[in-house]
């Protein structure tokens, strides 16, 4: 749209393009999901209309802004969708593949717009194929329907068969698909973090409402204080002050919630791309897999949403690739040929729980034991003694894979440790349960937000520290006799688990080897991703909601300290960074 006099300023245009990208991303995500659904429900006209409208809107808007490549491609897609909608074409695997491929190219085109790199993608091939498949399909439909119109409805199967194997003559008429260089596909979908966010107007309204109440409370506070200063105290000042403080207290926590909510986004934003992923994986590996998604409206902080995608992709790939067996193998085991992968999300207190469950073959605990020994992660005697639950943890180690055959998608042993690293970054916990031939369930627990945390105040060596409560598994009062030594490092025997323990105060003072054990030590058992650590402290002081402040440049990189906060009593306290603490502890052992 190279028009000079259109009344739009340059920065306004920039804003419009940013809006377009957000809008287009959403529409394309919906295309991905809906197209996959369409495959299983090819007669759903409402769904087709929705898909058509999404492509149509992207076409309209991009043409408006002059992104010709996007317009060209969506235009061709729209042609096909329109014919599908009018039953002039039939939903075939070939058409679906083409449409989904177009969506992928569309993503690249939008990235080009986003990065303003001026790059163009050669669309000739895909456009030619999109056009060819229409003729193809229509010709086939005609050929079948021509002899007798009435027979058509009675013989849907013949038609479908003809579709999948078009006559050789038509194959040559179509452009040489296989010999043509495939459209350059960027497999690595570049990720640029969105700097804008769409917020529901209702949420903004509630924020405004609360602001209004805060202003009222401030006015009454100012008034009361000025009365006190002028010594006009009539005795009810204290009462007025109490009332105002109570309402400021209430408004602040509501405000906090309202502001937090503005950053919250439904996890469905991430889940949306998984039906496509599972479909492609199932097709490639010739398996039958059904993905069941629930709780997609569960909301998470934007930063968490951005980080959680990659680990979930790994886990779902694992479930499809290693978990769910081939249809023949499943039937031999007496299971239905179609495997089920369930992805669910839900809120539990101030945490979000995401679970991935498959009904596949489960983890081979003996293979993991053998591999752990082979890789020198533990001795044979050790692994025999460890309960299965503990053995499963080895799969989170870097380079750990028991897959006999490396496939395209997984088995390279890079998956699970990436998952662990990502979950650790988010201060999350990960748990794994698996039963042979029943399946595997992986549960991820994440804090709702990273900016505010529920803190557990503890005293150690006369200093107060704050531990993130969401990572605390339990707190125990132990006896000295519960503590034993493994490789000269103290460990706590807690039920069937062996947990390494450290002394917080000593450790943070740089006295890494120092380990002083009081008579009856308190131990806080914290977890990070799949690991646990016991922290010895002197006293529990209570809980408080704290806002993390960074320590600034010169102190920011202190290992084991995430930041500081100001508590209700006005004192500055340090917040423990569990990731740092875990790596110190690992160095020691």
């Amino acid at each position, binding site marked *: *749209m190279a*028009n000079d*006099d*259109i*009344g*739009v*300023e340059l920065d*306004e245009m920039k*804003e*419009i393009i940013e*809006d*377009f990208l957000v*809008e287009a991303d959403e529409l394309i995500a919906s295309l991905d999901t809906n197209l996959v659904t369409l495959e299983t429900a090819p007669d759903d006209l409402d769904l087709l209309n929705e898909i058509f*409208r999404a492509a*149509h*809107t992207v*076409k*309209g*808007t991009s*043409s*408006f*802004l*002059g992104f010709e490549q996007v*317009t060209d491609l969506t235009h061709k897609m729209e042609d096909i969708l329109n014919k599908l909608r009018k039953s002039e074409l039939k939903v075939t695997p070939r058409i679906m593949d083409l449409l989904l491929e177009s969506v992928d190219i569309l993503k690249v085109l939008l990235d080009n717009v986003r990065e303003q790199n001026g790059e163009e993608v050669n669309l000739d091939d895909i456009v030619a194929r999109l056009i060819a498949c229409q003729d193809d399909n229509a010709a086939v439909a005609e050929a079948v329907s021509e002899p007798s119109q009435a027979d058509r409805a009675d013989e849907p199967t013949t038609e479908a068969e003809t579709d999948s194997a078009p006559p050789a003559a038509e194959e040559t008429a179509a452009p040489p698909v296989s010999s043509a260089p495939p459209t350059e596909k960027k497999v690595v979908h570049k990720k640029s973090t969105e700097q804008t966010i769409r917020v529901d107007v209702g949420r903004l309204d509630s924020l405004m409402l609360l602001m209004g109440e805060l202003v009222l409370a401030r006015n009454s506070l100012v008034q009361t204080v000025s009365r006190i200063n002028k010594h006009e105290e009539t005795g009810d000042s204290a009462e007025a002050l109490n009332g105002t403080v109570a309402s400021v207290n209430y408004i602040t926590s509501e405000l906090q919630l309202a502001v937090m909510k503005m950053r919250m986004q439904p996890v469905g934003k991430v889940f949306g791309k998984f039906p496509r992923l599972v479909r492609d994986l199932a097709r490639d590996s010739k398996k039958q897999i059904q993905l069941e998604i629930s709780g997609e409206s569960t909301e998470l902080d934007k930063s968490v949403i951005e980080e959680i995608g990659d680990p979930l992709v790994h886990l779902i790939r694992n479930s499809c690739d290693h978990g769910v067996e081939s249809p023949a193998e499943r039937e031999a085991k007496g299971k239905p040929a179609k495997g089920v992968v369930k992805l669910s999300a839900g809120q539990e207190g101030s945490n979000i729980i995401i679970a991935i469950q498959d009904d596949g073959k489960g983890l081979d605990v003996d293979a993991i034991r053998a591999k752990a020994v082979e890789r020198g992660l533990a001795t044979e005697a050790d692994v025999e003694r460890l309960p299965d639950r503990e053995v499963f943890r080895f799969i989170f180690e870097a380079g750990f894979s028991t897959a006999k055959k490396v496939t395209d998608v997984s088995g390279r042993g890079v998956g699970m440790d990436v998952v662990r690293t990502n979950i650790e970054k988010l201060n999350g916990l990960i748990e794994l349960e698996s039963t042979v031939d029943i399946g595997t369930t992986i549960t991820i627990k994440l804090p709702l937000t990273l900016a505010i945390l529920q803190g557990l105040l503890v005293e150690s060596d006369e200093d107060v520290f704050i531990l993130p409560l969401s990572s605390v598994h339990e707190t125990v009062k132990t006896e000295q006799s519960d503590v034993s030594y493994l490789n000269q490092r103290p460990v706590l025997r807690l039920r069937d688990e062996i947990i390494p323990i450290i002394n917080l105060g000593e450790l943070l003072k740089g006295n890494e080897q120092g380990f002083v054990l009081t008579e009856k030590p308190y131990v806080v058992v914290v977890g990070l991703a799949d690991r646990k650590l016991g922290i010895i402290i002197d006293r529990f002081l209570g809980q408080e909601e704290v806002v993390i402040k960074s320590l600034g440049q010169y102190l920011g990189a202190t290992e084991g300290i995430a930041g500081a906060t100001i508590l209700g009593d006005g004192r500055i306290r340090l917040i423990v960074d569990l990731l740092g603490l875990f790596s110190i502890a690992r160095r020691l052992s």
Partner: protein
Amino acid sequence: MSQTILVVDDSPTVVKFLSFSLKGKGYDVLTARDGMDALEKMSSLETSVDLIITDLNMPNLDGYGLIEAVRESQEHQETPIIILSSEEGVEDRERGISAGASSYLVKPFKSTLLLTEVSKYLN
């Protein structure tokens, strides 16, 4: 007093582009995301709408439905309506005009063309 234009489109980007563009030319702009929304906004307003620019393919109530409803109302029988659609077909154009639209523009279009069209109806 400046004149008011109602922009109806289910794409927020198009709505934003048009409103920036029209505001830059000194018009007051109201926006709606579909036909239903447009009718609700028009009925709840005190000021009158001097011109409507609408898309055709929208959820809830499409452009045709909106135009018909607007033409049935007392107040807006004469209000100029410009259709801005990415449907290029002659059928759509005829259907739009016979429903009561004053002009039919196809996306993509030159902004200046729209502005000229708008100024044809408004002073």
